[in-house]
């Protein structure tokens, strides 16, 4: 059972990254706005959940709803920033947002301030032998829902509109694409999903502290995974999250957690330089060559 438990534990992290990578890709891959502030949205979800636990002892579904709402609102706010900030400036602003929020949370004593706060897991709902399985199943559902949303976006007029913004925002505007509404939709949905990924986090770690919740690893991983898998399709972030997420879990156990982060950085740089379309792009090129 011990080894089995670890599978749930590691699987949870990989699934969480499927949600984060898919969420990042809605804004970064489809729309072309690179978000460095994943941690800010993830933390908004996690801390919304924590506040609900502290104040009302709310159950996980309520925490997820609240986290989705709070992070979605934050995403909407970021959406308005896209009116004036494009490209690099938008990215730096999102990174700044993350630091501002971390400072605020570190000074907020109710949620434990900079030292963090331990919470006790309640009894898992009936049917589930332990919390590990419960959280795992919740994450499976969240990952499935995020991927379904991404698939829908890609195959609807929304996705085409977002792609038009990515390729040339001015031209899209001139062609009658409602760019602002679409951007607000993309930032809100992306933020919302990132927040949702963070909501089960307090019960998962039981010690919530700003240093780990706002970790830069989230920002790097959530953009590295789609980049490695491929940013133009819904399947790219999944491939990236499964490959990189699993590799990290294995490396953390067998080597060291620092070294596996180093590998993430190197793989990211290598892919960005050598295979800008990611694994999906590599496979497509292979098939096209076969077909020709």
């Amino acid at each position, binding site marked *: 059972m011990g080894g089995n438990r670890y599978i749930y534990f590691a699987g949870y992290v990989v699934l969480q990254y499927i949600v984060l990578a898919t969420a990042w890709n809605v804004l970064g891959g489809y729309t*072309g706005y*690179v978000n*460095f502030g994943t941690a800010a949205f993830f933390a908004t979800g996690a801390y919304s959940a924590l506040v609900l636990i502290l104040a009302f002892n709310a159950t996980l579904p309520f925490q997820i709803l609240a986290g989705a709402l709070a992070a979605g609102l934050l995403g909407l706010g970021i959406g308005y*920033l896209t009116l*004036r*900030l494009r*490209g*690099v*400036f938008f*990215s*730096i*602003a999102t*990174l*700044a*947002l993350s*630091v*501002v929020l*971390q*400072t*605020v949370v*570190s*000074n907020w004593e109710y949620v434990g301030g*900079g030292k963090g706060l331990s919470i006790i897991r309640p009894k898992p709902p009936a049917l589930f032998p332990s919390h590990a399985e419960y959280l795992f199943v919740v994450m499976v559902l969240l990952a499935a829902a995020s991927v379904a949303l991404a698939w829908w976006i890609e195959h609807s007029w929304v996705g085409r509109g977002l792609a038009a913004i990515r390729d040339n925002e001015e031209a899209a505007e001139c062609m009658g694409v409602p760019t602002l509404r679409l951007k607000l939709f993309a930032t809100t949905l992306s933020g919302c999903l990132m927040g949702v990924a963070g909501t089960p986090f307090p019960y998962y770690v039981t010690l919530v502290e700003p240093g780990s919740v706002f970790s*830069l690893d989230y920002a*790097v991983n959530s*953009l*590295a995974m789609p*980049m490695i898998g491929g940013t133009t399709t819904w399947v790219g972030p999944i491939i990236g999250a499964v490959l990189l997420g699993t590799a990290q879990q294995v490396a953390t156990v067998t080597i060291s957690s*620092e*070294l596996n*982060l*180093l590998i*993430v*950085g*190197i793989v*990211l*740089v290598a892919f*960005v*330089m*050598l295979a*800008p379309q990611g694994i999906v792009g590599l496979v497509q090129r292979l098939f096209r060559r076969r077909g020709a």
Partner: protein
Amino acid sequence: MFSLDLLLNAIVAGILIGGFYAAVSLGISVSFGLLDVVNIAHPSFVILGSYTAYAMNRFFGFDPLLTGLLFTPIFYALGVVVYRLYYLGFERKGEESLRGLVFFFGVLFIVEVALLLAYGVDYRMIEAGYVGQSFHIGVVGIAFRLLLPCLVGLMITVALHLFLSKTFYGRAIKAVSQDSQALRLMGVNPVKIKRIAFALSIATASLAGALLILIGPVEPSIGREYIGRVFAIVVLGGMGSISGTLAASVILGVVESLTATFSGPSWAPAVSFGILLVVLAVRPAGLFGR
């Protein structure tokens, strides 16, 4: 709790810190402001400079400032290599902006984790006779560990300003940002000019890193705090303006110092990022922008 002494001390400390911020920001001012190369990893090169100063101090007893100066050519060479990779990977294909940004984000991560692996998460500091010393002018105390970085920061600023405005290469660097095609027609290779400018910006990180570890202990992830800070300064100062960078550095230093004195140091990091967000949202051209 408010007192004039406290206020004066906070302002003077802020001005001194501002001089140091200028040393850190000048590199970004050149790479981002003049070349349009968004080197978000610049602060991690500064931290690399700090650890170089630490190692040389620890093992050979070198003065950090001497190390900072001695290692500028090595950092220059490092800058040449990084620019070469950046050019081959992105600029040549004309897709530099966002993928280039991700590239530097990855570089930042690599440098940080490499330092973490080599030195661990502990704070590191250096030993030098003058570090703990200070003197007083009236009620205002001035610490050498702040005064020296400020003076060196000012010297780098003046040197860079003179280089950019008086020398051939300096003027070429300013020109490459405005019209690289025209530069090519003049018989100058814009790529070479950009390489020189970028490498120069990384070379300043060596000295800035030595100054950083003079001011206080460092740890590998401390560079992140400087990302928002330096970009706030460069944007506030107006892209690529050296004097604007200095002015914005001092403003940010004073505002941060006042915040730390009157609201507690744990709020200070939010100040620069908050200013950055406001400036980006309200006046992206910066206070001193053209």
